[in-house]
């Protein structure tokens, strides 16, 4: 174990330092009344170097596929971790760009919001790579507490405050369960280190270990918003500002899902089989209830919140033991696909939203009011429904179904297909609004900022690129794992 800070070690800390620095700068900006530094410049200034740095580290480690730890307290340097961190930083950057929209400029606490985004991002960054239960928990809390505050940051809206409280209470419950689980693990193994725990768990008292894993799975479901722990999702997604919703639905979900997946596949891999039934029930409930409740929603953000529950369940099949062991790509492939689409959807919603909430009728005739935004949202909805022309969506689903069939979960595969049919109903409800001609009194052209055009085009081009060359992502993921 090398404790001296030499060059490679500095590399590990630079992204975190940059992110925290960005957060501090935004807080400073919030306190000064004059000389407002443009938000978009601030975001670019700290995010872009972080992404470049991470990309550099990734390329640095790329030739050596064996993993090693720089220090036991901090980071795993497995390629898949570095890769997820890179993706995480990119999507966090794209989500953070939304805060520079003109409509947020005159609102209270813009600087603080950006600071919270920076802090949450640094928390998520550590969460993905950490090899220690305490750091894992702490970084999760940094991510979560920043998110609670972000949800409540729309100071003029009562709904936003209410949603923040709901989110706080249920998120805290999740944190408690996870903390309890970690405490129990420490109780039987006397260690927080993943490697050490993994070796000792098999000899430890089985009932305690199973109890702690059960708590962990339920805590994770609460954080991910799976049924029956989903009560906060719809309220929070609807009441928060769209930029915040975007951050929660894409960035936070990505970090928590990957981190949960990594900890289960690294530490609990031999035990998680005992909970297959529980996970199965959670997944089935999430698919059915998420899709059914989405159908009756009148608010587009709320509808997408329920759809997010269902999609979370689709990639959560990765937590089932046989898939966890053999078909990890299915989890990553679907997660990456869903994250991109969720970013596209909520970024587009952000351009449309005026006050809090976005009634679905405001999407009417979008393709005529703004051909670009309409087309992007149309393609996103078709992809979420798993239909061409963006075939990447279907390939990701094919991966999930292939994994399920190989593991013998034919019933679950059928449930996913049933969920897809239900899902198509409400996606097509939005699609039919988008393409139906706008009545004259509702015809308002939509203004999109260049920043949004660029980020949406980038995301769309990524999807199209991977539709044309699917091997480049799927095979690449297989190689990384």
């Amino acid at each position, binding site marked *: 174990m090398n404790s001296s800070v030499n060059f490679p070690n500095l590399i590990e800390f630079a992204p975190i330092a940059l992110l925290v620095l960005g957060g501090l700068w935004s807080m400073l900006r919030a306190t000064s009344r004059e000389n407002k530094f443009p938000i978009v410049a601030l975001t670019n200034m700290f995010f872009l170097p972080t992404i470049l740095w991470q990309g550099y580290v990734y390329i640095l480690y790329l030739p050596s596929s064996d993993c090693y730890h720089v220090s036991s307290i901090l980071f795993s340097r497995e390629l898949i971790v570095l890769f997820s961190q890179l993706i995480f930083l990119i999507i966090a950057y794209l989500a953070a760009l939304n805060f520079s929209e003109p409509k947020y400029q005159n609102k209270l606490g813009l600087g603080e919001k950006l600071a919270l985004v920076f802090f949450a991002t640094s928390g998520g960054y550590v969460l993905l790579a950490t090899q220690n239960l305490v750091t894992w928990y702490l970084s999760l809390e940094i991510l979560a507490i920043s998110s609670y505050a972000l949800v409540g940051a729309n100071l003029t809206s009562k709904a936003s405050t209410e949603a923040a409280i709901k989110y706080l209470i249920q998120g805290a419950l999740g944190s408690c369960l996870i903390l309890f689980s970690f405490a129990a693990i420490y109780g039987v193994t006397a260690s927080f280190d993943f490697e050490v725990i993994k070796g000792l768990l098999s000899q430890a008292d089985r009932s305690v270990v199973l109890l702690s894993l059960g708590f962990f799975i339920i805590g994770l479901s609460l954080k991910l918003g799976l049924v029956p722990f989903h009560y906060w999702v719809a309220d929070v997604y609807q009441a928060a500002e769209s930029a915040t919703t975007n951050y929660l639905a894409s960035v936070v979900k990505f970090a928590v899902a990957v981190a949960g997946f990594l900890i289960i596949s690294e530490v609990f891999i031999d035990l998680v089989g005992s909970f297959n039934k529980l996970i199965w029930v959670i997944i089935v409930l999430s698919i059915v209830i998420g899709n059914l409740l989405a159908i009756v929603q009148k608010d587009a953000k709320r509808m997408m919140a329920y759809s997010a529950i269902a999609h979370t369940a689709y990639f959560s099949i990765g937590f089932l033991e046989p898939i966890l062991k053999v078909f990890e790509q299915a989890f990553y492939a679907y997660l990456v696909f869903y994250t991109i689409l969720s970013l596209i959807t909520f970024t587009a919603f952000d351009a449309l939203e005026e006050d809090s909430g976005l009634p679905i009728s405001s999407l009417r005739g979008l393709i005529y009011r703004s051909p670009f935004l309409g*087309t992007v949202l149309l393609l996103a909805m078709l992809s979420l429904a798993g239909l061409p022309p963006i075939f990447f969506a279907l390939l990701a689903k094919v991966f999930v*179904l*292939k994994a399920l*069939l190989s593991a013998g979960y034919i019933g679950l595969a059928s449930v996913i297909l049933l969920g*897809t*049919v239900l899902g198509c*109903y409400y996606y097509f409800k939005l699609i*039919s609004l988008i*393409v139906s001609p706008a009545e004259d009194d509702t015809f308002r052209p939509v203004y999109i900022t260049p920043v949004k055009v660029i980020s949406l085009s980038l995301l769309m081009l990524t999807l199209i690129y991977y539709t044309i060359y699917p091997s480049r992502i799927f095979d690449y993921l297989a190689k990384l794992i």
Partner: protein
Amino acid sequence: MNFNLSIVLQVLLLTPILGAVCLFLKAGKFCELRPDWMYKFVTWSVLLISFFIPSALLLGGIGLVEFAWFPSMGINFSFYADGLSYLAILFTAFIFLTYGLLNRGQSAGFYGNLLLIEVSLIGLLLSVNLLVFYFFYELMLFPIFYLMTANGNAASKKAAYQFLLYTLAGSLCLLLAIIYCGYSYYQTQGYFSFDLSALLSHDFSLQEQSYLFLGFFIAFAVKSPIFPFHSWLPATYANAPKGLAIIFAGLLFQAGIYGLFRFNLILFPEAFAEFAPVLAVLATIGIVYGALLAWRSKSIRGLMAYASISHVGFSILGLASMNPSGVSGGLLQIFSHILIAVGLFTIAFAMERRNSSELISDFQGLASKAPVFSFFLICFSLASISLPLTISFVGEFQVLAASFIKFPVITCFALLGVILGAVYMLGFCQQVLFGEPKEEEFKDLNPDERVVLSSLLVLILVLGIFPRLISDILTQVASQQLKQNPLEIFEIKDQQQKQKKTDGLLLANFPIAQHE
């Protein structure tokens, strides 16, 4: 001149795609062009290009085009053209062309989505990789939904959802079955493949075959439609705006029957043999039930929608007979149905445009007002009830002759459909053409409609008089795919009677063979 098949097929697929992209750009005001000219240009080019397929097949040799798309999953863009897909593409291109004549001056989005439907139909007729087939199979959903909702009223929106959900539920069963096919191949070979050629060499156990058969069957049964999966059809046909029922009734169903032939029959022959009696019964129910409902129908499009359920039943019955003669008859029935359904729906569309009424009872005594219209209505009605010398007679006769050998009792019931067909079609003609003329003016057909209907009629007659123009191709395809000699079905198990009976049956049942 040597035409490379791969180039022909690529151009064939890319032309409508590029056309659709141009039209969408026009719809988004990114470029300037005349939408209906563009549509006409593209559909003409597709028709002309598809004529090159046979010469390319003859000269180029191999009929397989492959681009690796996702090799590690065994998904390749493999396209293959044989006689069946060639004919189907030719007919599809022709119908899209005629539809452009009937609907001038629509928006760019309208034409763009029509071209997307054309792409998806051509693509699925060509693709021999199951997942690529699925891609094209699903590609048509959004354009249809768009055309139904953006141009329609509340009823057509409701019908669009119904169509969408039915088709999706079916096609997701198809997806599950396709993935299982690939997985089953993986279990024996160690790598995934969704290529038809690879899967044909794979042995599925009978139990696997039955489940996979059902997965494929449900999807295609919804699309065709086969009783009892037909309930989306009347609503969709009755509410499709702007004469889109012409496209739906004339072209979409062929995807289902084509799929049943290309995948169910060829990939899972043993399961198909198991299910053949069930299929025959369902087809017969469809034939009789569709005919009965058509008889009682009060609206023009309702009548034609139920009539098409009845006609599609004959195709399925032909496939269920599982012998080259019946199968090729069933396939021939696809083309006869395309011509007749398009003709009849064009007439229905013309009637509705003139009188803005959908009820049969609102029309009376048109024979004296619109002689050309009446001529075409009579001709297409007679074709619809399979008068000899029309193409439908050939198909129906082949189907009934072949299925009688396998399912004599069921076929007798199916024959009822032929009689009922005459009852409802002639009843419809009598009501509309004769009797006391009503006060309202009824303009005779305009030049566009005359051109479309007469070209269809010429095809119906020419192919009815010289059926071997296409039936030879279809028989060859069917016997090739079934790996059976066309005459093999007539082999009787009893060796002693074999020679005598075969001669007798051959003479009785092979009117087409007599040309030789």
